[in-house]
């Protein structure tokens, strides 16, 4: 029996009058590879922020390794959406990855050690962009930027890796590289992945959670029409790629969509 690393119970979060998450209960076990899908505004980012301890829920609780996530800063590695990042900032790839080695709190006169630098370089090799270490971040492609953010999260030496849409606006080959990297990483750590990418859900993820304010589905990565309807109110969205695949088993077109 594997341990539960993230335990979410009766979680409710609202912004003013808008309810983002309602009574969500979800457990993530050690070594799991959980994919979270859902429409925009379905509360995916809010859930991530609760796990990270950035939002205090109105009701319910989140425990990471049995403790309040605020106390557990370093066990979770976070990979944000790169679209929201400042790409013009004067900083090199290596420097960004090194920030993952910073100590919590304020560290006066802190200097990165040789060990920190070696770890950062090693991680850049692991994600496949070692040759870009001294490049300014404004010169990176979307895929390279995303790999750098994964390396930064790994520099914390996390037990859980949280990724927010890691393949949004990334070219197809980088996308494949990122997923195969995640599969390798999954051997060492728990992965929680928020995505719109349904092809990835079917072929990579071990468990699936569908979020639309409520937790609509949690289980094996196979969707049926009822869940899809609950989730998006429109099953057509699910096969927008035009490629039939096993995420949605039977599909006879949504009515009124």
């Amino acid at each position, binding site marked *: 029996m594997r341990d539960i690393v993230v335990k979410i119970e009766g979680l409710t979060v609202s912004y003013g009058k808008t309810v983002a998450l309602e009574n969500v209960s979800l457990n993530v076990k050690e070594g799991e590879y959980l994919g979270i899908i859902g429409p925009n505004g379905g509360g995916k980012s809010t859930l991530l922020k609760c796990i990270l301890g*950035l939002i205090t829920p109105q009701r319910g609780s989140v425990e990471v390794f049995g403790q309040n996530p605020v106390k557990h800063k370093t066990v*979770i590695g976070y990979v*944000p959406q790169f679209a929201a990042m*400042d790409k013009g*900032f004067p*900083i090199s790839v290596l*420097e960004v990855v090194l920030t993952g080695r910073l100590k919590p709190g*304020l560290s006066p006169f802190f200097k990165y050690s040789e060990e920190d630098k070696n770890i950062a370089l090693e991680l850049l090799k692991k994600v496949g962009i070692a040759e870009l270490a001294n490049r300014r971040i404004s010169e990176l492609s979307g895929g390279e930027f995303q790999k750098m953010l994964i390396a930064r999260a790994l520099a914390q030496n996390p037990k859980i890796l949280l990724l927010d849409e890691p393949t949004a606006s990334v070219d197809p080959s980088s996308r494949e590289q990122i997923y195969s990297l995640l599969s390798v990483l999954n051997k060492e750590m728990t992965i929680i992945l928020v995505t719109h990418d349904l092809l990835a859900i079917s072929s990579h993820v071990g468990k699936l959670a569908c979020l639309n304010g409520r937790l609509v589905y949690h289980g094996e990565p196979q969707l049926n029409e009822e869940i899809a309807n609950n989730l998006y109110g429109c099953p057509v969205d699910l096969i927008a790629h035009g490629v039939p695949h096993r995420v949605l088993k039977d599909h006879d077109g949504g009515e009124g969509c």
Partner: protein
Amino acid sequence: MIDAIFQYKFLQNALIAGIFASIVCGVIGVIIVEKRLVMMSGGIAHTSYGGVGFGYLLNFEPIIGAFIFSVIAALGIGYIKRKGGTRSDVVIGLFWSVGMALGIVFISLMPGYPPELDSYLFGNILSVTSSDLKLIAIFTIIVLLVIIILFNDWKAYLFDDEFSTIIGLKTAFMEYLLLILIAMTVVALIRVVGIILVIALLSAPAAISGLFTSKLKNQMILSVILGCIFCILGLWLSYLTDISSGAAIVILSGFAYLVAYAVKRLLSLKLNRA
């Protein structure tokens, strides 16, 4: 002019003030430009005018009043922005003009019109006194030390404050600390370029060096050097032609940015064609 510098105390003061101002300006300016805080700094600077008026009214050193008001503005804007709800540009705009309005009210409440009031608005580096110089030097050293001592934390915070919060950096504390450093910078610069012109000296050297450097530290160093050049050239121009020193420094900075921008554009066009 070189002879005059050795001869006249006021020119020596002006030169030293200009160099200190360039140092604090170069370092904080880069942060303001890269963290997109230029307008917030404008708000903090203009609010300080209320403090200048307050000082005149209650008969204490106006620059102390300016410091108190700009710190209140910095913390107020920072707090409201953090709590969300109201859009921060609205809050900045309100602080900006309400601060100015308070200054006008305080000054109209006192008998007569203080003759050196203009120097707070437009700066007069040639009238910097030894006690002004002391204040500028102390503020510069404090700001510089705080940035250098926590440099790696600052770099992480400035690049990505959300990630920094997640790995446990004290980002709320750092944000308020940064705003207070900006307030101190503004006060140190008031005697040199004045409340209204402060934004150009904060942003132009930092933005120019941003065009030609790729590391935060180098950008700060180049920005300090450029600031020194603008201050000294501006001082020289003002000494020669008898125009206001603050205006001379600011026009030089703005013009230099335009030239630098054009040069950079031409260079990248050439590169693209090659």
